[in-house]
């Protein structure tokens, strides 16, 4: 590809020169026909319930209301609690930097209960443990009761292993899969009628950004896909992270489907975005909620290479379609959602958004996405500028 031309420009040129029939089944063909749904954006400066709750309620209403989506249904919410709860960025609470904030979780649960959800299940596969999620939260200095009491019939489940299920749910990738043809997951991802990804607006060391789609990387049980996964059968005492997926140094437990092509690149920038798309295809996201009130710039957690900065974009974003939602989030972060490998923030990875668009999950083209509420221009918080500054001041760019 011409280095002076973005992939989108290249596709447009190619498309202009090609007969219409050529587009059918092509990447660009899927891009122009990929689904689109409104994305709601609101400014929210603090996690104070007096500001947060009405703001969240408003953006859910702008999407058509939660009642339409959750009334009488079992809702599963995948939280974003990445990394061990004993890591902090400086002295800041985890919910102000890299965990989805507990107030956002509680407010969402409350509004779902109010909208008539039959049962609300809060899911996470926490770092290296099969302990109850509640215990994990306590280590982060959160009181799980505050979330559990926000609505009737609320419960947590640790999905890092078999959990309360009798067996793993085997879910098949409808398009065959980029990396995996199917996954064995904790029952919770099958036993729900509405699936919500509630995440933090962040950059990501491997995948460029982590938003509603990348959050679902963590639906994989470490018992099968973790560093300590059993070779033949799942290890029900899960240990370690998901380096197995990142680098492909080994296969999941043999009881689960192996990856399609063990000769494919063993590069996290290739594998992680593709695996994420495979995962959100087996367990589609019905509602994406992105907490950008307070977060961090420079990586997905305090373990990333410094400099890392706590930031306060003061934003809440929600959408029905995760690709659309993540595309709007990228724009809000000052990035081009049409960017791909080689262009920030995807210097070393493929774009999860492009890969998801290619398989028809949703468009990342802002021109095809309706933004409701605050405009992108009004709400933008420029992570990209912070990134440029960071790169300029990095030792590699300093002259002696």
């Amino acid at each position, binding site marked *: 590809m011409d280095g002076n031309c973005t992939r989108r420009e290249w596709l447009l040129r190619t498309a202009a020169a090609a007969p219409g029939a050529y587009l059918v089944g092509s990447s660009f063909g899927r891009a122009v026909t990929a689904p689109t749904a409104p994305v709601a954006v609101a400014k929210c400066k603090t996690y104070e319930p007096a500001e947060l709750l009405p703001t969240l309620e408003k953006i859910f209403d702008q999407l058509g209301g939660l009642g339409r989506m959750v009334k009488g249904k079992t809702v599963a919410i995948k939280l974003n609690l990445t990394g061990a709860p004993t890591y902090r*960025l400086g002295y800041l609470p985890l919910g102000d930097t890299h965990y989805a904030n507990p107030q956002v979780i509680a407010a969402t649960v409350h509004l779902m209960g109010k909208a008539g959800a039959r049962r609300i299940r809060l899911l996470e596969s926490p770092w290296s443990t099969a302990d109850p999620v509640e215990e994990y939260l*306590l*280590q982060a*200095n959160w009181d799980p009761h505050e979330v559990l009491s926000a609505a009737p019939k609320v419960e947590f489940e640790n999905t890092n292993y078999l959990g309360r299920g009798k067996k793993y749910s085997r879910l098949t990738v409808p398009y065959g899969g980029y990396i995996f043809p199917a996954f064995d997951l904790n029952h919770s991802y099958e036993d729900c009628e509405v699936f919500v990804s509630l995440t933090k607006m962040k950059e990501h060391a491997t995948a460029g950004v982590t938003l509603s789609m990348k959050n679902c990387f963590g639906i994989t049980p470490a018992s099968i896909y973790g560093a300590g996964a059993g070779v033949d059968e799942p290890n029900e005492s899960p*240990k370690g992270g998901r380096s197995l997926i990142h680098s492909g140094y080994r296969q999941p437990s043999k009881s689960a489907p192996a990856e399609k092509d063990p000769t494919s690149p063993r590069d996290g920038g290739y594998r992680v975005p593709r695996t994420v798309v495979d995962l959100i295809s087996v367990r589609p996201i019905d509602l994406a909620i992105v907490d950008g009130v307070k977060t961090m710039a420079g990586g997905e957690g305090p373990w990333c290479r410094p400099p890392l900065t706590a930031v306060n974009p003061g934003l809440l974003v929600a959408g029905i379609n995760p690709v659309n939602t993540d595309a709007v989030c990228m724009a809000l972060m000052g990035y081009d959602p049409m960017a791909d490998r080689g262009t920030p923030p995807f210097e070393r990875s493929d774009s999860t958004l492009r890969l998801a668009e290619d398989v028809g999950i949703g468009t990342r083209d802002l021109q095809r996405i309706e933004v409701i509420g605050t405009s992108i221009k009004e709400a933008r918080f420029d992570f990209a500028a912070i990134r440029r500054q960071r790169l300029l001041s990095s030792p590699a760019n300093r002259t002696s």
Partner: protein
Amino acid sequence: MRWPRMWKDPSALGLLKGTAVNYLLVERHDDLGPVVDRARQEGFKVTEAASPPAGVTVAEGKWPGVKLSESGAVDTAAAGPTGNPWVDSNGWKVRLTAALHPGTEVWVEATPKEPRLFTESYLTAVADAAAYGGRWIISLDKQLAEGIAGQKTEALETWKKITGAAGFFAARRDWSDYLPQAAMGIISDFSGQNEFLTHETLNLVARTNQQYRIVLKTKVSESSFSSLRAVLYADAEPPALELRKQILAFVQAGGMLITGPKWGELSGVLATDEHPRYTLRTFGKGRLAVAKADLDDPYLVANDSVVLISHRYELLRFWNGGAVGSYFTTAPDRKQAVVHMLFYASVRGGDPSVRVAGQYRTARLWTLDRKAPRSVEMEIQKDAVELHLPPVSQYAAVELEGWSPRGSFGRKE
């Protein structure tokens, strides 16, 4: 201190001037005779290395710190069962030895295994015993002993820091009289067929930073269980009738018993919640957690106990501490508390912080490198204070004052 064999010149005793070293363990060698004579003249107590003096119990320890890989590669740490670095510490052994031999001083015998150790490693050795009320028998590696004898600047600097650290704890002997704060009591005779499991459980419970109390089953009294949330009884034989009654009274009053199938007849009724490895029962106001299989894996026993009790009730909670060890004690009158913290990893990132259950008015930070304490930023939380520590090395202690009986651990004893 263990007198280095190569220090044959009595003038080397001058190195001890003004330090807290008052006892010399000397190997029987004719050529050390002049040293022994001079030492006695100068008021040092001298004994043969193989025979500790009366009133002292020597605990055989390990060199404390993050354990290196079997290959000895300095850049590779051996991993614990969770992938976290494995830490060797003698703190639990000091406490157990003190409990088993009340009224005696506990000295820790841990000699350097490496040909040369960093200064920081020595400071950890001093603090790892002293924080828990023991004394490390200062033992120098050959290279350091040679360097000190040869008046090498770097070696003398290390020596100054080692004796400085020993002096720090000697000046705070009253801290040794402080009482351990605990959420869990571990009941056993800690001997015979119970030795392996209970000793290793003490070691691994300490690694979780769960604060525990050692309860000798022959010495249980009413106060043994005061302020505890739970007790662990993991001995191979069922408890004697009287002990059983005492433990069940604790449970009935709201405590938790964690035990194995050998406990015998079960009281109470099945609880509704489930645990993969324990059957849970309610009894009176409290609960019993009875392991479904024999308790034989100390790692599981230690970690399960923390979760069975719940992190909600932990007395100390760390962030960015790395491989941290801790010991939380209060003065007998409860007016002061000290949180001892040992940072075993030599490289740490981030800003460490610790949440201490209870309410306090002031906090002062002591470190080995400063003569005066520093103030610490303290955030008041519900039932706790959170202390934001500056970058600290090897050892730090926070002295807290103004305890008030509020919060989870404000229960009167």
